[in-house]
């Protein structure tokens, strides 16, 4: 899993019917220190994340194990909203 910050959302009217009703968010991966990385990805949201939230993103076939994503064409899911990052010195 990776840490990412919600950077926006996307709207798609024409899409795979199995994706209907899903919230799609643009997320930007960040390091545990909070520094943004250069790439973006689109993730399905199953926990109710909002703009600027620090979230946990699961990728690959495991993304389909998030709630409601079984057998859906999804490869990135938001599975948690992060409250605290604890880094040992």
């Amino acid at each position: 899993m990776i840490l990412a910050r919600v950077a926006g959302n996307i709207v798609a009217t024409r899409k795979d019917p199995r994706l209907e009703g899903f919230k799609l968010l643009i997320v930007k991966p960040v390091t545990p220190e909070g520094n943004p990385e250069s790439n973006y990805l689109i993730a399905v949201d199953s926990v109710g994340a909002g703009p600027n939230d620090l979230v946990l993103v699961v990728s690959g076939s495991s993304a389909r194990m998030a709630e409601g994503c079984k057998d859906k064409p999804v490869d990135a899911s938001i599975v948690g909203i992060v409250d605290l990052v604890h880094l040992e010195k």
Partner: protein
Amino acid sequence: MYLGRVMGSIVATVKDRNLHAQKLMIVQPLNPQLIPTGKQLICTDAVGVGAGEIIYYCRGKESSFPFLPAEVPTDTTIVGVVDEVRAEC
């Protein structure tokens, strides 16, 4: 599977139902010489590790297998603590 060092942990209250009570650790991937390589990840923990320990983790859908029959949405899981590394090249 890959080598890594546990750097810390994260706390997330709002998360996928199947991630409930899972420990989420920050892991820095290492090469066999134990030099950090690549981006830090968030891993679920199947063995009970602490910060500073050298561990190995697996990636992909297999990461959820240690938690069966629960379907934990994770793509990286710590599956062992390393006692010793003997790298000959």
